């Protein structure tokens, strides 16, 4: 066969392959940020949906990390080529909400497409984060998680701690950290990933204290940060003190430091419940997780935790027919059995009440209590003003500012109080800037 004919044949094959699925099918672009096993989950979902009907075809595309995916979506919108569905992490919620015209609220989408949609079917601790103050759901929860305390049971035994009774309060964690340090974990008694999520955002919700006015920003973009209050200062002061002899050791702003738990270096680590897959695959010791610790003197603590993870936003300016496909896909996603499967296989939280009840009734959590911990935290109490969630514009960068100040306190450049004051002040500057640009 000559080179020329090979080229011709492959060109013909290419044309055919491209043309075949286009027959009257509406393509729906879905940009996401999941890798590894979670990427497989996305691909499988799309395949299952595409096989379940003939009118629509979901095309998933990986666009990099969470911030990268958000930026890719923003850039594509500016260029007029936005996808239909964009997966955005919870930190980007404020940015997305403020973009009237750039997004299509999910409650509107479902109504217009005539899909049966009952917002009450979803777990309120999850949907609250993605809804307006009136309760209108703006985006579809997809992969939700919360923060839990992972601990190394073998290390607990070695340090003479009871592996089945993990510390419940912060003072108990500090004591455990000291014992673990004495038992040979001298580089890191306890630690946390996601510096600000652990020590500011989740900390505030779990202790029922505000981090900002206006219901932590849920009720308006004119919220003012105020987490330089006594309990936050006390907690940071404790961490600074324990950092000195490495009973506590800082592990960075994101989850880059999570390997310190699975490698056995840090026996206690607060991080996302989504860490499950990684722990299961890599930890060569007996492990478990427990709810986040709290300060017993805080009245009402523990309150409830807030979610992390990401939701699916529908971008604006698309055709009605395409929106219909998106709506059908969301109905497909919310199906009880599908949610049960997603939850038990990936470790992400089920988003509907029915799915949670079904998994609970099956006795699944008896063997795997660590998958229920985040749900128990989220639903621990009826959410208050301070624990419904948080919504700030530019939060990606504001988190960096907060991390900078926490680092400044931990390395002794600033007192904990001065660091938190600065974090609040600099964060407020960003919020005011955002308030001006947010088109409402």
């Amino acid at each position, binding site marked *: 066969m000559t080179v020329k004919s090979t080229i011709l044949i492959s060109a013909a094959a290419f044309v055919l392959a491209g043309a075949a699925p286009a027959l009257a099918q509406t393509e729906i672009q879905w940009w996401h940020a999941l890798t590894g096993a979670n990427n497989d989950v996305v691909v499988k979902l799309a395949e299952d949906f595409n096989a379940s009907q003939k009118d629509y075809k979901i095309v998933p595309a990986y666009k990099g990390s969470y911030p990268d995916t958000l930026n890719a979506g*923003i850039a594509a919108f500016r260029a007029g080529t936005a996808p239909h569905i964009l997966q955005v992490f919870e930190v980007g919620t404020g940015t997305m909400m403020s973009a009237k015209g750039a997004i299509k609220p999910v409650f509107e989408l479902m109504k217009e497409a005539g899909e049966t949609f009952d917002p009450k079917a979803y777990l309120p601790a999850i949907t609250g984060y993605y809804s307006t103050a009136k309760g209108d759901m703006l985006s579809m929860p997809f992969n939700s998680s919360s923060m839990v305390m992972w601990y190394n049971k073998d290390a607990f035994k070695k340090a003479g701690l009871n592996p089945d009774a993990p510390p419940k309060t912060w003072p108990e964690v500090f004591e455990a950290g000291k014992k673990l340090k004495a038992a040979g974990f001298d580089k890191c008694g306890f630690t946390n990933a996601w510096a600000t999520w652990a020590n500011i955002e989740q900390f505030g919700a779990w202790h029922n204290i505000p981090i900002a006015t206006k219901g932590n920003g849920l009720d308006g973009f004119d919220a003012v940060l105020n987490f330089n209050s006594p309990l936050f200062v006390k907690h940071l002061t404790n961490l600074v003190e324990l950092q000195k002899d490495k009973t506590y050791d800082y592990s960075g702003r994101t989850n880059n430091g999570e*390997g310190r738990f699975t490698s056995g270096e840090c026996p206690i680590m607060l991080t996302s419940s989504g860490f499950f897959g990684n722990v299961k695959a890599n930890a060569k010791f007996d492990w478990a997780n427990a709810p986040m610790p709290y300060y017993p003197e805080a009245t009402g603590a523990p309150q409830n935790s807030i979610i992390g993870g990401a939701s699916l936003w529908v971008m604006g300016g698309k055709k009605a027919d395409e929106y219909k496909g998106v709506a059908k896909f969301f109905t497909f996603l919310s199906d009880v059995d599908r949610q049960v499967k997603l939850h038990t296989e990936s470790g992400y939280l089920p988003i509907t009440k029915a799915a949670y009840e079904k998994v609970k009734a099956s006795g699944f959590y008896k063997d795997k209590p660590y998958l229920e911990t985040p749900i128990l935290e989220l639903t621990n109490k009826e959410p208050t003003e301070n624990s419904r969630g948080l919504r700030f514009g530019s939060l990606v*960068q504001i988190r960096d500012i907060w991390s900078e100040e926490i680092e400044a306190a931990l390395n002794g450049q600033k007192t904990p109080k001065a660091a938190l004051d600065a974090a609040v002040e600099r964060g407020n500057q960003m919020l005011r800037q955002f308030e*001006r640009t947010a088109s409402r």
Partner: protein
Amino acid sequence: MTKNAYFSGLTIPVLLLAPQLVITVLFFYWPASQAVWQSFLLQDAFGTSTEFVWFENYRDLFADPGYYKALINTAIFSSFVCVLSLSIALLFAVMADRQIRGAEIYKTLLIWPYAVAPAVAGVLWIFMFDPSLGMLARGLNSLSIAWNPRLNGNDAMTLVILAATWKQISYNFLFFLAGLQSIPKSVIEAAVIDGAKPMRRFWTIIFPLLSPTTFFLLTVNIVYVFFDTFGIIDTISGGGPSGATETLVYKVYSDGKGGSNLGGSAAQSVVLLIMVIGMTAIQFRFIERKVSY
């Protein structure tokens, strides 16, 4: 027969210049002018609302203490990287220029790091010096030398300087070696006959004759540390801890991309642009005079 061929009319010269002009305008002037225009705007991330705010972005920028900190960081970072990478490369080049066994292998190996992308270089250094994973970091800690770039700003700065220097040495080495080899042997032999020792030969003959190369490399290195070290900083420290390794170009990125503050970020890039133009101009105006071609 004429010695000079010249074209009458404008068509052919314009046509010949056109590809270069189009590329320059399309890929340099147009984006640069966009940045200048953007720096006068206040805009939300999606571009759905835009407000013309004159110099407000610049005013905010110069009122931000973080900007001055980034300026100081850049000064420290760039002087260390330039001085270290130039001097080490020069030392290596002088050594490699001698008659030694295996010189070719030695030269080839020295050039390798240049093929490594900045982000990858950053990851390589993190592998060595991460306090939990890094072999060398463990070594330092076992010698009870406190080393924690996660929290100690000086440690983090040292690490990014080392990585950025390592990355640039091979490029400088290559040019220095070529420069050394183009120095006429006769001049050096004459000096040998006059009884000049190696050190004296180097400082009075070789170094001045290398000055065009050194000058060129200095300019290139400054541009390198200002713009191309972004990937190294991003992978090693992400500008942290507490902003200790945030340089000007990194701040442009984190404000513009992370913060969706395009106006402020554009204002910073305009200032950065002016700065580098100014520095290059100063170099050509003053330092070039000392260069003997």
